[in-house]
């Protein structure tokens, strides 16, 4: 069976040294690149495994945020009476949920990396970072499906003369989703590293995520926070606040933004990059001996 094509690649100067690590940042990028096939296969697996065995299949990816949007429109806007800048509340919420669901999906899957894969990690080595990275990319498919549904609703609202506008500025949604992805990956890596050590966090994460959602302008406009004397600072302290508001500005208002929003977005971008760097460092520290304790 030893045909030349199936022989191991020549690895003349290949040398791996395994010893207790001293440096606190040791990321083998070359190795990450070598495992790119695993990355693409895991992306596929995450997507397929999530809806196989369900009757509605991939429809769940859009049904979940859609139902949330409907429930929240009734609770916040119809009963709670929160105004939505003259935009129909359903599309107002649905739009903000584009970036928010992507964020919360990434956090939920990423934070459980070590605990959910402890069996796998205890048996075979590969760069652990591949797992949360694959999850974050595969969640983009859900975002894509959601975006299609959003556009369908948008078309209907636009046709019936609602106060919604879209233009070229809609393309700005792409960098916004990118910031969301980077920030959520960073936060989820930090959470994964901490959850491996303190199991309590796995109970705390969903609660935290819910509080975070209500502290972000998902079901109400940003000015509700900025105009609030007590909680105004929250809009600046929460990197997701500007991202969620901006998503709506570019997809529903033709790109109109409040004057302080670009500054806030700059802060969000910096926070996202910082979170990713810290997350990768913490994750790499945790991955080396995590199998001894999980």
């Amino acid at each position, binding site marked *: 069976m030893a045909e030349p094509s199936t022989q191991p690649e020549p690895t003349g100067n290949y040398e791996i*040294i395994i010893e207790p690590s001293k440096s606190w940042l040791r990321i083998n990028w070359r190795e990450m690149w070598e495992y790119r096939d695993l990355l693409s296969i895991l992306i596929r697996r995450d997507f*397929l495994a999530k809806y196989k065995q369900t009757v509605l299949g991939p429809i769940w990816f859009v049904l979940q945020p859609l139902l949330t949007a409907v429930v929240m429109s009734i609770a916040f806007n119809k009963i709670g009476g929160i105004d939505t800048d003259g935009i129909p509340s359903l599309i107002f919420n649905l739009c903000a949920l584009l970036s928010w669901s992507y964020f919360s999906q990434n956090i939920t899957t990423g934070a459980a990396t070590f605990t959910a894969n402890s069996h796998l990690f205890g048996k075979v080595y590969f760069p652990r970072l591949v797992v949360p990275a694959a999850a974050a990319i595969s969640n983009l498919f859900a975002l894509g499906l959601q975006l299609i549904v959003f556009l369908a609703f948008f078309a209907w609202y636009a046709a019936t003369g609602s106060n919604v506008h879209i233009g070229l500025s809609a393309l700005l949604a792409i960098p916004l989703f990118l910031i969301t992805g980077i920030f959520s990956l960073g936060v989820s890596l930090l959470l994964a590293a901490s959850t491996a050590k303190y199991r*309590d966090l796995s109970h705390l994460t969903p609660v935290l995520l819910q509080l975070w959602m209500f502290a972000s302008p998902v079901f109400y406009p940003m000015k509700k926070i900025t105009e609030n004397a007590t909680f105004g600072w929250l809009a600046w302290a929460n990197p997701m606040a500007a991202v969620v508001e901006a998503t709506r500005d570019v997809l529903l208002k033709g790109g109109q933004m409040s004057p302080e929003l670009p500054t806030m977005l700059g802060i969000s971008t910096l926070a996202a990059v910082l979170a990713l760097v810290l997350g990768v460092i913490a994750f790499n520290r945790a991955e080396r001996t995590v199998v001894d304790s999980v």
Partner: protein
Amino acid sequence: MTAINANRPIVEIENVSKRYRVDTLGPTSLAEAFRAMLPGRKQPATPNDFGVRNGDIPGTFWSLRDVNFSVQRGEIVGLIGKNGAGKSTLLKLISRITEPTKGRITLRGRIASLLEVGTGFHPELTGRENIFLNGAILGMKRWEIQAKFAEIVEFAEVGSFLDTPVKRYSSGMFVRLAFAVAAHLDPEILLIDEVLAVGDAGFQQKCLGKMSEVASQGGRTIFFVSHNLTAIRALCTRAVLIEDGTAKLSGAPEEVITHYLAATTPTSEGEAGRIVYKEDAPSVDELRLTSLTLRNSRDEVCAIFDANEPIHVELRYRVTERLRGARMLVSLYTTEGDLVLTMTDHELHKPTLEPGEYCTRFAVPGGLLNRRAYSFCASSDAPGIRYLISGGKHLPFTVVGAGNHLSQFPERWPGAVCPRITTTVELNP
């Protein structure tokens, strides 16, 4: 392959130690972490946070301690040793699943490990999808998997089930597919841990065949952890005995195995030659095994017997409720797991056993067994009605001495038993 590394050992293990915590693995809840932060309560948080200080720390143990050996390209190394000796820890370090506490391992080749077949199989995905997933997890590139796809499918014999989710596979099919992927890995260094424990006998044969095929192609280095000493003997070019976390002996498989068997004594259940059954041992409401003891002709409890002396086997058990039609069985096995014989007290029991303490004694005559390692295992059933006790602990022992085969050579004599055979030789009868 460039000349630089071709002549250097493909695996070098230098002063490798691994320490594990045994109490709790650092603070595992936030409350504990806060308590640990109080003055005077400082605790190391992870197993490796001890740094490289020497000396023992309470609540920790050394799974490996100063292990040193190196392996040349093409060697097939069998790691043997008792459970808990540190064999699997060593493989985990070599396969980079966890880091050593001290020391250094240098690998000069692509490595793949096979610590458990089916690693990373996803039940909802089809056989085809799982071949690609599992292959990638084990470190294969997509093109490598594609190149070997047909071969893998053929080896696994799953043919028409290729597009069925693996959760619908029988356990036999699952194991075959998992092993097929793993067997077609082409690393320069392959780590295998106990995979041969699974599957039916025919499939095990096929796996061993595949392993020796891979081995015989040359150039591949294999680490093989197994309790199957026959497989180690047949496949390995070298054996390393791991004992109490150190590499005690390294050399020709035959020599190392002999040394290992001579030192084999049960450890977890008290002294050599006796099992005292614990609470969790198999039992039924009416019947519980108490102990199984081996004695030599001087009435000493022991686990090493001369080939010509009888072995006295004593099984003690407690009947707690009236029990109909029960008999006790003690079976003799080789270390490969083959059943040699079964002894029973069937004829000596009354149809109904009254509650009380019982003892059944068997005497295995001298001059029957071969010079090798065996084990006894006790069980009980009510013939034609039901099994009572099975699957209990094995009590290992070794037979040594001159034996009966009339050969003066110090060779290992084949066979599960070696009874006294009347032999004559005549010239021109």
